[in-house]
């Protein structure tokens, strides 16, 4: 390559993130090849021969201002016509150059530069663009072919961005639908026991007025049962909003898991009431130390037990515990109706069925298991179930025996 001809080669490829329509062309310079206008044509021809990568070279004067452009195809074609080399070889390169190449400022946007390039006469469309800085000094060359590729990438990219934005918007809309459906369902679930309490209270008032004191006892127990179910729903809703706000924290301490499970089983028996359902604890040992949050632990297992009681008309609910490999696994097994496979995935989502409240196929709010799953997460454990339609269901909760951190937020 001639010593008068300098080229610093291509700049590094910009990353895909840069390929937006507002990319400045100054960042896209592909070559900084330049030559003085008085250099002889034969030297420039040598340059094109020796550097096959060089598509064009700018003519830059002693003040570093661009004064012309020669492109490989046009230059060589002219030169190789009959006598071309003989005629021109010894002349300065300026005599064969395009002396009015398209100059673009380094700050020019890619799409605008491309518009300008494409606005040129057909034969010049693919000529390189000359990039100058704010003072008009030569900076380098832009390959139009390269710009076209970049621009099409940028367009494709913006289409992808638009699609992503669209997908996000519809996702948000779906979430908002789920939330309002959730609200409608919660409203219904809260209203039901309140309505029952009001009706029962009215009845009790009538009993009092008539002096039927013996009726009061029955009605009081009805009212208590409605109030208890209302309390459970309210607690679940509050817990869930606490979890969603990231305000639910676990406080780890050591306690006896067997003792806790004993208490839960006793509560389960009370819940079963007069139903022909046995609630039993099946544990190999009488003491099992666990470093976890005892309040959350109780809530998790009690929730599973009360669910089992709710759905089991007769038979047995067995709470078992096993310790193995630094973990304990508590299982709650019932002889209830079982859960269909297609419904299993939805179990741990609040109102998992995401159905209209009036047409929902499942009893309850679905809040309990959602809260339970979050609590299990909080205790760094896992929850899963096995069920056979018509035979029964077993829920498993696996928790680490020891906690490594003292506190963790949901």
């Amino acid at each position, binding site marked *: 390559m001639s010593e008068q001809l300098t080229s610093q080669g291509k700049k590094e490829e910009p990353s895909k993130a840069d390929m937006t329509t507002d990319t400045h062309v100054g960042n896209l310079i592909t070559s900084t090849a330049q030559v003085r206008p008085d250099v002889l044509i034969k030297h420039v021809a040598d340059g094109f021969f020796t550097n096959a990568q060089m598509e064009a070279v700018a003519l830059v004067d002693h003040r570093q201002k661009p004064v012309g452009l020669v492109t490989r195809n046009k230059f060589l074609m002219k030169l190789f016509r009959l006598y071309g080399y003989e005629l021109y070889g010894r002349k300065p390169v300026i005599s064969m150059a395009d002396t009015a190449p398209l100059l673009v400022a380094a700050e020019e946007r890619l799409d605008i530069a491309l518009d300008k390039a494409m606005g040129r006469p057909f034969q010049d469309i693919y000529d390189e663009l000359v990039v100058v800085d704010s003072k008009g000094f030569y900076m380098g060359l832009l390959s139009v072919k390269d710009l076209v590729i970049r621009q099409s990438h940028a367009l494709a990219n913006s289409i992808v961005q638009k699609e992503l934005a669209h997908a996000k918007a519809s996702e948000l809309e779906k979430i908002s639908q789920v939330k309002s459906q959730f609200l*409608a369902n919660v*409203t*219904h679930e809260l*209203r*039901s*026991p*309140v*309505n*029952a309490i*009001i*009706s*029962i209270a*009215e*009845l009790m008032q*009538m009993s009092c007025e008539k002096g039927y004191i013996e009726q009061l006892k029955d*009605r009081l127990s*009805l*009212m208590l*049962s*409605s109030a208890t179910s209302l309390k459970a729903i309210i607690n679940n809703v509050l817990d869930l909003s606490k979890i969603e706000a990231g305000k639910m924290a676990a406080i780890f301490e050591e306690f006896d898991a067997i003792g806790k499970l004993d208490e839960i089983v006793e509560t389960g028996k009370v819940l079963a009431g007069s139903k022909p359902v046995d609630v039993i604890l099946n544990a190999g040992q009488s003491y099992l130390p666990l470093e976890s949050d005892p309040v959350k632990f109780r809530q998790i297992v009690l929730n599973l037990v009360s669910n089992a009681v709710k759905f089991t008309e007769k038979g047995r609910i067995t709470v078992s515990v096993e310790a193995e490999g630094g973990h304990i696994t508590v299982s709650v097994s019932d002889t209830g109706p079982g859960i269909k496979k297609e419904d299993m995935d939805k179990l741990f989502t609040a109102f998992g069925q995401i159905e209209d*409240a*009036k*047409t*929902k*196929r*499942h*009893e309850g709010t679905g809040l309990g298991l959602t809260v339970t799953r979050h609590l299990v997460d909080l205790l760094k454990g896992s929850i899963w179930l096995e069920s056979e339609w018509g035979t029964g269901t077993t829920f498993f909760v696996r928790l680490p025996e020891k906690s490594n951190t003292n506190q963790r937020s949901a």
Partner: protein
Amino acid sequence: MSEQKKTILVIDDDENLLMATRDLLEHWGYKVFTHRRGFGSTAAIDLVKPDLVLLDMNMPGLPGDRLASLLGSFAATKSVPIVFYSSNDEDTLRKAVSECNVRGYIPKGDIYELQRKVRHYLNWI
């Protein structure tokens, strides 16, 4: 009063509310039967031959609106007047009434409304 001999069937899965409603209606002098599931309602209606059915909407398995459509399609039950009795908001109830072949609705939780509307629907029949 002839009204006091009228028979009402209440279909609801919430046992507490079912009992409370039964006691209230009996207190007002109606003969009351209760049914705790959507399923088996046709047989219950056929057996009881009620003058009015109070039907809950949110029931597992067979929700009230679907049940109402079913009851409307059976010869044995299609002439029985049905009224939704539900904790849903009134907009939902109004919509469900317009979509199902039922006489109307009574929102749960207001016993005077229950008393007034039951009388209204029974007299209307």
